[in-house]
């Protein structure tokens, strides 16, 4: 498997707080990579550096490189909007726009210039099918998306992200606000999606990392402590701190 993203000596500061310290990592294509660690360890922050969502916070300062397909995404020549189209994001709390289900999905394609009704219809249906929610919503595409349940809203957000045909999907604790049934649906969906997409998921839930991910990275206090195949990391961690965390000694 070839690597699709690489971070080199990445440092990040919130004003004076050093939130990420010399992070080096490579993320393989068409696989699920999980980031685990206690609250405040920098895993979500790191996830957001991968599609430059941290740009929206004025006090953030970043040094080092994040390469996507060999190109440093923090280079001044990079079109951030195009980057975020290729590297999509699903947030912790489902955040559908207050519009119809159809318009939610069509928002991305419309943003990138697709106007034809036929084409939009096609993309909406395909994205909803890929997110395994088509059968539940096909009869109410014109209804407001805020009327759906939390789990449905989150799958809608995944469908919305898929509609712009990204290469990578970043998921920031996508199931932390959901019930167990919705959670397992999203996990199944993630496993299904890794056939065509690269998925990076931040999770609080170690069982979730074990269940779905191929590789796991353990963060602590802004440092990447250990990174490797999920099975190996959980059965034979090399670092004492990793072992302490996964055996539940802190966190």
């Amino acid at each position, binding site marked *: 498997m070839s690597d699709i993203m690489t971070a080199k000596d990445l440092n990040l500061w919130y004003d004076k707080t050093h939130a990420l310290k010399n992070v080096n990592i490579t993320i393989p294509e068409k696989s699920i990579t999980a980031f685990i660690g206690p609250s405040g360890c920098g895993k979500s922050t790191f996830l957001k550096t991968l599609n430059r*969502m941290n740009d929206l916070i004025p006090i953030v300062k970043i040094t080092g490189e994040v390469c996507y397909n060999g190109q440093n995404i923090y280079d001044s020549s990079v079109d951030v909007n195009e980057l975020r189209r290729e590297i999509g994001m699903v*947030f912790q709390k489902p*955040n559908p726009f*207050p519009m119809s289900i159809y318009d939610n999905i069509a*928002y*991305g394609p419309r*943003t990138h210039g697709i106007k034809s009704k036929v084409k939009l219809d096609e993309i909406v249906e395909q994205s909803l099918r890929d997110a395994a929610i088509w059968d539940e919503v096909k009869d109410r595409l014109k209804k*407001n998306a805020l009327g759906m349940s939390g789990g449905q809203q989150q799958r809608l957000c995944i469908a919305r992200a898929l509609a712009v045909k990204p290469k990578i999907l970043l998921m920031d604790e996508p199931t932390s606000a959901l019930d167990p049934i919705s959670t397992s649906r999203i996990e199944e969906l993630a496993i299904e999606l890794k056939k065509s997409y690269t998925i990076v998921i931040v999770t609080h839930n170690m069982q979730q990392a074990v269940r779905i991910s191929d590789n796991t990275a353990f963060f602590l206090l802004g440092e990447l402590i250990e990174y490797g195949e999920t099975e190996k990391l959980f059965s034979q961690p090399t670092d004492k701190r990793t072992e302490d965390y996964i055996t539940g000694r802190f966190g």
Partner: protein
Amino acid sequence: MLSKKRKAYITAMKTAMYISVGLTAALVIFLVLFVFFKGIPHISRELLFTKPSYTSGRIGILPDVLNTLYIVLATLILVIPLGVGAAIYLTEYAQNKKIVGMIEYAAETLSGIPSIIYGLVGMLFFCQFLGFKTSLLAGSMTLVIMNLPTIMRTTQESLKTVPQSYRDGAFGLGAGKWRVIRTVVLPGCVDGVITGCILSVGRILGESAALLFTAGFAHALNGIVEGLASPGATLTVALYVYAKEQGEFGVAFAIAAILMILTLLINLSAVLVSKHFAKKRKL
């Protein structure tokens, strides 16, 4: 058990409270009834739909109604883009918190200045310096400055209620800043803009001091373009003129009654609009 003293105290306080509530309600009801009682008998078809004629001694307020309409329209057309634009800049773009704070403070101060001062400045600046003469246009320009803070502040407040998660979602799909604002942020704050407009319309209807200096007293029947270029009295100014300069108190009260009804309608529509949007948000 409550002591006797305590009981007497509670009764006294309750009585005082009922008296103040009763007085407030009675004052409002008295004012409204008084104006309606004095004014409504003078409202006639002739008054509403003709212009005044000095030769026949006829009094009609149609020109004043139209002038009011023109001035409201002209003011809104100018003030909405300015106010909404300023609000968008301040909440979405401006990085320097100090400058934003200063502008907000200035806007708040601006809305507390007595309107006659706006009239004086408007007369010197718009009528004389810019050469608009005494005209409805100069009047509406003055009202634009007066209402700018209202529109700006209500829009700003409702921009702040649009959840950050909507913006994040849109940015995450690769939308540029302006597209995010246009498609996700602005639709979420329409209610604020509308509320600001309704408040402004109410203020424009009630404004007289600023217009006495800038828009004049004429009662000529004009189309909108001609009307804006020439002097004219709005309903409120006409009320002043008829009462103070011609001693036509019946007409003045008729106008007062009309203004009162309009104000009532405007407040009612403000309530309806906010209810409508509150319902939409909840969904």
